[in-house]
């Protein structure tokens, strides 16, 4: 290992967390509560990271909240569920490690920082009813609304989400019919929460952890870019960071935790690591692969699992806080009734209401003619959608923005406008309509996953919450673009069960840890489950700091013995 010690240290601490999402903040809080000094470095001007952009779901199998509600679950069941999702691309020990420890990390933060979580009622696992060991509810948790005024001067520096309706909880939304039934939501409650700055979903989750850091007096430096790890030749002992254009050397006697998310805003890495072409992104610009640039030079090993390319679109006139066009996810839109997605042949190509299936088809390559047969693609809706459901940020009663796709009075005209085969599209819509009216989709089985109904269906629409015919003009078409999966990466740093970053020699790199989306997804492998990202941030940050402070968890070994693995 290279030796690059500075002549002098500018700051001395015991644990440095790089990144202020749930992974970095969990590590800093845990280190502090195990007697160590900690410091958080955040490259942007706001804290909370990608956690604050998320829906705030935290997937924890066998958690005590579910048990209190009498919902049956266990570590073994959660392990077997994730093992099935992993399809052999994950690692059994990593899967067990995540499942075993997430419930303990959850309790730790609830007891120490006042984190308040609750079961998202009636929220099923992605594969409920299609995979054994899935549950109808209980594993998906969310925060109780957080009073952000308690953050003091950090209130405005703690990140909000431009995409998520963070004035409402999942419970508030889904008891009134979910995302599709936005018209039925309690907006008086939302207005009250927004006025008081009571945060739900991802912004609420992030804020709880920011408060935990503030209550402990742990310094958080913003505009602080970690540039290089410092090694004494044996172990990682610090970080060189820049702030206000100056180098600052930070000594970390117990360890450095890389929790800087992934690389979605780096198109070069998207292509060369993720095998994804030109992605739009819902995350901010500092998510550009700093984890690799920091850990690579000290010999860190990376690992890759299968990944999907998501779909999204831009609504003219919308920007993020950095002044860049704001991406909207197609996920909640394309599974609504009266909606289909077609390729340039005018054909549907998958179950639009179940993105974990549908999005694997986007980047399929036809080697015969060197094309992506399913990209470009278009979402087609009729006027029933416009009357009843949101389309991204476009709500019923709002004008269709100029420049957002095509509008036509017939399906044939619509096809001609967007340049696809009119006859084929008419046939596709006619076939879809015939079956949709009976609540069936024999071609792709849309509407059979309970999660699809929960996420993007209209439970009041009969006979099938995800299927409705396209019959009412005018019709609309919006071209969908490739989009990243909100920083959930194909490739990350390989870590062991204490969150130590591994070298290519299969030995842990002393003093170096990683958490959150900086870590390779060896606990999910082929297929992601919503809520895992936040859970792995919280869990791996906690594990890293425990090990760094001399309190490593022994629970994995106990579980291995207990389960006879």
């Amino acid at each position, binding site marked *: 290992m290279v030796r690059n010690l500075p002549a002098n240290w500018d700051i001395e601490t015991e644990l440095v967390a790089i990144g202020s999402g749930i992974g970095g903040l969990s590590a800093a809080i845990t280190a502090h509560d195990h007697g160590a000094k900690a410091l958080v470095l955040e490259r942007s001007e706001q804290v909370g990271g990608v956690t604050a952009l998320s829906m705030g779901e935290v997937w924890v199998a066998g958690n005590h909240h579910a048990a209190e509600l009498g919902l049956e679950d266990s570590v073994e069941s959660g392990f077997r569920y994730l093992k099935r999702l992993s399809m052999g691309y994950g690692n059994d020990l990593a899967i067990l490690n995540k499942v075993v420890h997430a419930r303990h990390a959850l309790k730790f933060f609830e007891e120490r920082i006042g984190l308040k979580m609750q079961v998202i009622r009636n929220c099923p696992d992605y594969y409920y009813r299609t995979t054994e060991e899935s549950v109808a509810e209980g594993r998906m948790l969310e925060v109780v609304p957080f009073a952000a005024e308690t953050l003091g001067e950090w209130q405005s520096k703690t990140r909000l989400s431009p995409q998520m309706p963070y004035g409402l909880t999942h419970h508030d939304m889904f008891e009134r019919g979910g995302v599709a039934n*936005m018209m039925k939501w309690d907006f008086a409650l*939302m207005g009250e929460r*927004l006025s008081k700055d009571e945060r739900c979903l991802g912004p609420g989750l992030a804020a709880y952890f920011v408060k935990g850091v503030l209550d402990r007096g742990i310094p958080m430096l913003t505009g602080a870019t970690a540039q290089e790890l410092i090694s004494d030749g044996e172990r990682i002992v610090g970080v060189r960071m820049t702030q206000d254009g100056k180098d600052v050397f930070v000594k970390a006697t117990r360890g450095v935790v890389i929790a800087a998310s992934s690389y979605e805003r780096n198109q070069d890495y998207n292509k060369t690591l993720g095998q994804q072409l030109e992605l739009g992104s819902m995350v901010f610009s500092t998510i550009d692969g700093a984890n690799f640039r920091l850990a690579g030079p000290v010999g860190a090993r990376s690992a890759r699992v299968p990944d999907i390319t998501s779909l999204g679109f831009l609504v003219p006139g919308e*920007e993020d*806080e950095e002044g860049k066009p704001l991406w909207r996810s197609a996920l909640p839109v394309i599974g609504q009734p009266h909606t289909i997605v077609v390729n340039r042949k005018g054909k549907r190509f998958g179950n639009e209401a179940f993105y974990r299936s549908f999005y694997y088809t986007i980047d399929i390559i036809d080697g015969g003619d060197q094309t992506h047969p399913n990209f470009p693609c278009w979402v087609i809706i009729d006027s029933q959608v416009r009357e009843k459901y949101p389309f991204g940020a476009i709500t*019923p*009663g*709002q*004008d269709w923005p100029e420049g957002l796709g095509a509008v036509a009075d017939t399906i044939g005209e619509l096809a001609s406008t967007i340049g696809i085969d009119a006859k084929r599209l008419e046939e596709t819509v006619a076939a879809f309509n015939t079956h949709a009216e009976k609540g069936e989709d024999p071609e792709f089985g849309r509407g059979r996953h309970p999660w699809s109904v929960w996420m993007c269906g209209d439970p009041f629409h009969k006979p099938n919450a995800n299927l409705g015919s396209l019959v009412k003009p005018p019709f609309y078409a919006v071209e969908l673009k490739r989009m990243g999966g909100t920083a959930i990466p194909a490739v990350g740093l390989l870590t062991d069960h204490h969150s130590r970053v591994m070298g290519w020699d299969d030995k842990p790199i002393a003093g170096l840890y990683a958490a959150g989306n900086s870590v390779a997804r060896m606990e999910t492998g082929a297929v992601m489950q919503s809520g895992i990202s936040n859970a792995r941030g919280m869990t791996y940050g906690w594990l890293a700091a425990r090990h760094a402070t001399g309190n490593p968890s022994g629970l994995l070994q106990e579980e291995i013995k207990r389960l006879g693995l």
Partner: protein
Amino acid sequence: MIEAEQSVLVNVGIDHVWHYVKDMQRWAGMMPGYRECTIIDANDSRWMLKVGVGGLVRTVKVLVHVEEWDEPERVSFSYKLEGDPVQGAGSYAACRKGPYETEVALRVRVEGSGPMAPMWEAVSRPLLPRLAKSFAEKLKAEIETAVGAHP
């Protein structure tokens, strides 16, 4: 419907304040997120603003119509967002507090319409007081700078 009211004491006489605010282009320029203003006629203008709500920045176009110019004390206006089912009204009221002091009270109201009216009002609720406060502070600062505040 939601409303916000904001008062500010300007250290300039009421006639000078009026001289400044009678220009609608200046009103638009004092709005947070101002981008451009097109004057249509003496009473109508079209403003383009970038409005920030919780991390989202959205360009909105607002048609503003002055209902009444009542020199030097009062202006009443109404407005409508282009493309969004949102409209409203408001007023500017100036009160002489002394030869070099004018109290300005701004009042603005937002009304959503259509099936999502409650959503538009919910989103506007935290935004409106911030906009009114920012506008009032800028109004005071600009007039006092332009005219010269009385010490």
